């Protein structure tokens, strides 16, 4: 009998010629909690999707409980005892806890009808198994229970297929401290029942709290495989980062000139997700916000742009107090946002490049009542040339542009709104290296002309090498300000 739940070796996978997994070795012992960490793009999610049958590997071998397997569909993975809890929960808010647990496959029937009694019994035993049957009511609507409880219901749902291996993807991102403690005790219970758990996270400290061993991926390769007790936070971070801080050109950092003429002053900003945040942006400055997923970094930008309701605090732009209740207020105050999700929030996919670029500037390209096609075309063409958007012409529909080019259009939109302050939410996420450089170059130029930039990135090397000042965020609060150069390793430690 083999004591490994999963043994994967030399796994390779590429998409359109881009190598994502380059000979990964990954093994999980039976009955252990195994941490999987790596920077964005290191290949974690691709590897998990191969385990889970969503993707097929190009080459390599995978053994599950000692037997060589190859999954073509998630169903096959499930039949072999593998279940996955995804990062964004997949529960239906209007249905009850029981109904959600058996959403996909309800095995309990009375003839054609669902046997509610049996389903409830089984749901109850699943909740008992993870020890939360007294806090989560079976008939409660999922939308009425807390996010932490939803996470547990999601786990119960995964357990319904009686898996031997459970994959958890960033399960703590939206949980509070006590909810995390409960989650950890649930994970330990499952481990004690012999279930092997793969635990993916950006919160490296959690690895030492909950994991027995850990694997670090970098650029599609396994760079560290160790018992958690034999390694340290520093080891993990340097393994994740490697020697090369790949990619972004560094930028001549200036000493901060704290003149009285700040471009943007935020004091005590509070929303549902951000608490008492204060920050300051001076002309010509790029201010970084370093924080993990769920730290409130996105919510801070959304609050400044009028997307989330501001409960308290004051915002000043160029010394004048402004009230921002909607994105259009923010735009009037000279603020532009390149949102996190370019396809859902940044672009109108069926509009042309030109129509997207000029959208925030319709007033300026109108002559009388009518839009001035000439002005519109000129503005679009100059932005396309300026940002190096690769397209046949300005009439091309943005839906069919590459991610990098779509992101350039989003940035072009921000610039066309004539803003003085640019809020960038992870603008290089999922963007190729070349486009990354071009976007950063434009952002630098914007700051060089006296604009102010607030820059959120999940790539800490970008923040480290690119920003003049860095604010550190954790759990909705700003917990530190860094005014001197700081390596990405240090930043990585600060946000933990």
């Amino acid at each position, binding site marked *: 009998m083999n004591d490994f739940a999963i043994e994967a070796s030399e796994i390779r996978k590429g998409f359109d010629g881009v190598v994502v997994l380059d000979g990964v070795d990954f093994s999980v012992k039976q009955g252990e909690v195994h941490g999987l960490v790596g920077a964005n793009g290191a290949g974690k999610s691709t590897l998990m999707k191969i385990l889970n049958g969503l993707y097929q590997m190009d080459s390599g071998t995978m053994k599950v409980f000692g037997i060589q397997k190859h999954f073509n569909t998630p169903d096959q993975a499930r039949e072999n005892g593998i279940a996955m809890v995804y990062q964004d929960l997949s529960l239906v808010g209007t249905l009850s806890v029981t109904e959600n647990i058996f959403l996909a496959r309800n095995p309990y029937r009375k003839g054609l009808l669902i046997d509610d009694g049996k389903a409830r019994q089984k749901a109850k035993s699943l909740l008992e198994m993870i020890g939360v049957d007294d806090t989560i009511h079976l008939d409660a609507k999922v939308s009425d229970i807390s996010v932490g409880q939803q996470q547990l219901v999601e786990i119960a749902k995964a357990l319904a297929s009686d898996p031997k291996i459970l994959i958890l993807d960033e399960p703590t991102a939206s949980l509070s401290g006590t909810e995390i403690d409960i989650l950890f005790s649930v994970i330990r219970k499952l481990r004690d029942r012999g279930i092997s758990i793969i635990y993916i996270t950006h919160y490296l400290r959690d690895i030492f709290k909950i994991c027995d061993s850990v694997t670090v991926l970098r650029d599609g390769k396994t760079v560290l495989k160790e018992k958690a007790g034999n390694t340290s936070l520093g080891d993990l971070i340097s393994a994740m980062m490697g020697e090369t801080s790949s990619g972004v050109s560094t930028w001549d950092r200036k000493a901060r000139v704290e003149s009285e003429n700040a471009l943007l002053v935020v004091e005590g900003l509070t929303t549902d997700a951000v608490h008492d945040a204060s920050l300051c942006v001076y002309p010509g400055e790029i201010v970084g916000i370093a924080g993990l997923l769920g730290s409130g970094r996105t919510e801070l930008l959304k609050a400044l*742009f009028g997307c989330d309701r501001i409960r308290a605090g004051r915002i000043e732009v160029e010394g004048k107090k402004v009230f921002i209740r909607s994105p*259009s207020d923010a735009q*009037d105050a000279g603020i532009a*946002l390149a949102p996190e999700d370019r396809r*859902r929030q*940044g672009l109108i996919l069926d*509009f042309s490049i030109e*129509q997207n670029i000029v959208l925030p500037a319709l*007033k300026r390209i109108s002559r009388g009542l*009518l839009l001035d096609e000439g002005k519109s075309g000129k503005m679009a063409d100059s932005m396309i040339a300026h940002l190096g958007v690769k397209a046949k012409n300005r009439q091309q529909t943005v839906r069919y542009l590459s991610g990098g080019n779509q992101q350039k259009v989003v940035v072009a939109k921000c610039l066309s709104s004539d803003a003085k302050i640019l809020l960038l939410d992870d603008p290089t996420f999922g963007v190729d290296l070349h486009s990354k450089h071009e976007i950063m170059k434009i952002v630098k130029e914007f700051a060089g002309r006296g604009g102010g930039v607030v820059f959120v990135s999940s790539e800490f090397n970008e923040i480290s090498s690119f920003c003049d000042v860095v604010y550190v965020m954790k759990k909705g609060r700003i917990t530190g300000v860094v005014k001197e150069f700081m390596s990405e390793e240090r930043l990585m430690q600060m946000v933990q």
Partner: protein
Amino acid sequence: MKITGFGPKKLKDSVVYIVFIGIFLLFSVILFDRGFLTSGNLLNIARQSAMIAIMSVGMTFVLCTAEIDLSFGAVVALSAITSALAMRATGSILLSVLAGLASGLLVGAINGIFVAWVGIPSFLVTLGTTGIVSGVARWVSRLQSIPIDNDLYIFLFGSGDIGPIPILFFWTIFIAIVGSVVLKKTAFGRKVLATGGNKISALYSGIKTDRIKFSVMVINSLLAALAGILYTGRLHGARYTLGENEVMVVIAAVIIGGTSMFGGRGSVIGSVIGALIMGILNNGLILMGLSVDQQLIFRGIIIIAAVSLTMREKKGK
């Protein structure tokens, strides 16, 4: 990965013209000896299609924002009755027309407030106002027809001809051109399409999407009110049944015309051609000698067929 969407898009946009020409040719052949191609009949089609066309212009704006309005049929009746009653009471054409339009404005504003600011789906809001408005129309008219005998009113709003051309034709052209320019060439039109294309992106671009939604509900109601006034002039009186059967016809005309039910894409000219298709269909089925029930059945079949042709796009994306 697909690089461009030009080919299929162009084809999609031209479906309405192909359908139009196809049906026209078909009827020209099979109904030739029943007088389909006579100038009298063609002008008749222009008259019959006019109100559908005008309402379809408003509906184009509504669908472009990914909303819908079911209440405009009832607005036609309310506006017609209000206008006719005001005419009887004051004898002033101006006041009569303003009264009719005001009734449309009011209904549109109520729809708009609930859709844009209360946040109720437009389908439900306008289903509700349909009941209220047609109830009011029956109540104030006491289920009676209200005749109009002012010659100028009748001439201007529906029955007049300038030379051989019916005045309704000019109304249609005027509204179609204004609507098309507003949708294609103004900031407002661009915002309408952006709101329907992706509401969140539009909002994040600084567009006040709630105001846009409010505006299109008002525009649609106002154009329905105008259609009500034109019906009154054409029929020399108002009745609570006006507009009752036009709701589905107008929505079908707009969709056949290439406007997406899911918002973000639309063509006013396409809608007007769509309305002409509906007019020709109506006329042709009558010339064929079909009974009213048979006409209903045939029209339903042809609408589903034409709409399926234009809506295939959404699949496979």
